[in-house]
């Protein structure tokens, strides 16, 4: 089903070419924008490098309790990555990403509680598999089928799934009901136990870097090119002979697996799981991270998670009541005036799309992802 790269690239370029022509007519503003795009050609690796260095030295300069907080943020950044894959690259609005995050958390919590399994090489793959399986089931059901599903149906379907899971977790005695599952034993490797602290931090950071690189490879591959085409113009990609629904289901499943990995790490780091973790609250939280940071850039998701959680942590001491209101206002402003997120202040649009394979690099201007 793989088509010659040039064909698809041509399609995307044509699509974007129309946009660029329109922009040119706007004159000076467009020229400035073009300059910015040119200037920002190699920004992405710099941004990624800065974030990585900052993350590496963070535990050395932070106090202990802040390292614990930073670990949580890194795990949430991993979770945000999963949502960015699904929304930023395939244009699937998953309002229920917490379903995979939380069900994996519950799964590993049950493994630890009932079977005494805490070995890191067992629980993390198990969590990933749980996320993958749930995403495969839900994604397969919502996305596949004789008729392509509408975006509304998929987004409300995932939202409903997450809400139903929340209700189920709250009412099911085996899962601990409202209280969830407390005091989960720490993750272990041989005789060593991962408790909160620098070791856990670097473990999580290492996992994030590996997953990030895998995702980056994925979205810059032939598969990623097809996804970019899908996001820009689903019908055209379908006319090329790609099975658009299959592509979507695959990326949705991968997203679910990453969310599951993040969820199992979160469960062990916090030491407990509770119904909110599968529910709508966490589902919408991850949407906030990615919208703030900038969807479709991977690093934007990470930055968004760090900024939202960081500012929230910083403000919550003194301004606990007004912070959610400020968050809502900022979100509204970002949606209205910066639809590509904070990252678009430093990252040109050409770079956001990236280049694929060899050959002339002309992926050009790209329009706002609004299916």
């Amino acid at each position, binding site marked *: 089903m793989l088509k010659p790269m040039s064909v698809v690239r041509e399609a995307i370029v044509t699509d974007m070419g129309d946009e660029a022509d329109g922009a040119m007519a706007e004159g000076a503003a467009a020229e400035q924008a073009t300059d910015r795009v040119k200037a920002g050609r190699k920004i992405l690796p710099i941004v990624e490098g800065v974030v990585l260095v900052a993350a590496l030295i963070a535990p050395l300069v932070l106090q202990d309790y802040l390292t614990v907080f930073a670990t949580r943020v890194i795990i949430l950044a991993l979770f945000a990555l999963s949502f960015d894959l699904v929304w930023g690259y395939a244009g699937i609005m998953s309002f229920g990403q917490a379903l995979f995050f939380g069900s994996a958390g519950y799964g590993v919590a049950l493994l630890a509680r009932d079977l005494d399994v805490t070995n890191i090489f067992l629980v993390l793959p198990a969590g990933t598999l749980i996320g993958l399986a749930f995403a495969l089931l839900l994604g397969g059901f919502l996305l596949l089928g004789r008729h392509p599903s509408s975006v509304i*149906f998929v*987004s409300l379907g995932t939202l409903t*799934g997450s809400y*139903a899971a929340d209700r189920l977790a709250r009412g099911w005695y085996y899962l601990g009901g409202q209280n969830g599952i407390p005091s989960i034993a720490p993750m272990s490797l041989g005789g060593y136990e991962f408790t909160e602290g620098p070791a856990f931090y670097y473990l999580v950071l290492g996992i994030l870097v590996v997953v990030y690189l895998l995702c980056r490879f994925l979205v810059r591959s032939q598969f990623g090119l097809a996804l970019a085409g899908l996001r820009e113009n689903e019908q055209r990609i379908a006319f090329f002979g790609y099975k658009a629904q299959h592509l979507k289901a695959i990326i949705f499943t991968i997203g679910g697996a990453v969310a599951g990995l993040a969820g199992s790490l979160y469960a062990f780091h916090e030491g407990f799981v509770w119904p909110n973790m599968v529910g709508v609250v966490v589902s919408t939280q991850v949407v906030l991270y990615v919208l703030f940071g900038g969807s479709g850039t991977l690093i934007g998701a990470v930055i968004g998670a760090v900024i939202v959680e960081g500012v929230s942590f910083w403000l919550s001491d003194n301004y606990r*009541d007004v912070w959610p209101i400020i*968050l809502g206002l900022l*979100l*509204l402003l970002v*949606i*209205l005036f910066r639809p590509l997120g904070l990252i678009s202040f430093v990252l040109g649009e050409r770079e956001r799309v990236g280049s694929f394979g060899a050959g002339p690099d002309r992926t050009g201007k790209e329009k706002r992802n609004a299916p």
Partner: protein
Amino acid sequence: MANAFVAAFEILSFGAIIVLIVLGLGIIASMMGIFNFAQGEFVLLGAYVTYLAYANGLPIWAGMVAAPFVVGALGFVLEALIIRRFYAAPIVAMLGTYALGLIIRESVRGLIGGFYLTVPEPIGGSIDIGSIHISAWRFTIIVVTLLVMAGCYLLLSRTSFGLRMRATLENPSLARASGISTPLMYGATFAFGSALAGLAGALIVPVFSLYADLGLRFLIQGFVAVMVGGVGSFIGPVAGAGVIGTLSAALPWVMAPVVADVLVFVLAIVFIKFRPQGLIAGKGV
């Protein structure tokens, strides 16, 4: 016999509450193509206005009359300032209205704190039929729901305002060419949908009491009801709301509540998957 009657009344009154809440949501979704995540917060605001009237010593029914007008006016302003930018992009509209809802919900939370505030029923007591007692206020809600439903139907199907509204929403460019001010119609439709939510909030606050997550509780149920009923008409979402409301209230009588809760959603999603056009398809009123 008496028990069965009480059960039937409970189911009917919960169904009426869901219908009342979905009316506004359905009108906005069907006519404008926007799934308004802030609708639950409009319900909350309606409840809050009623509470304010009560707390300041005004009669409760005065607050209930004022609520739809206050919330409708707010809806009109929000449409002109914000919602208007979202018409071409349904997903962005969801996110934008979610942000709006977050702002409203957290502001109300800041105003009332984390409390459950009770508002007494303006019509208290019960209606006694032989040995059966049913709540007078719940009975009033059923009656008002029926009246509002009939009123909306007549407004949309019989008046020239309704005709212009449907024309605008079905074919905006033709409507503009025929001399209808489409921005005004969009604003009016959104305000109308918000006002219905405000009314719903005002009427249900004596039953559920006022707390910040009041609207959120009904939002997802409302969305599911709209999709089950079918987007694109007035009747569709109302029918969907009737089905979802009745099922959610009836199933807990025959099985464990937690299973019933989840089963309603699963059934609804499966139904929508295989019948995306919903219960009542097609363009009518």
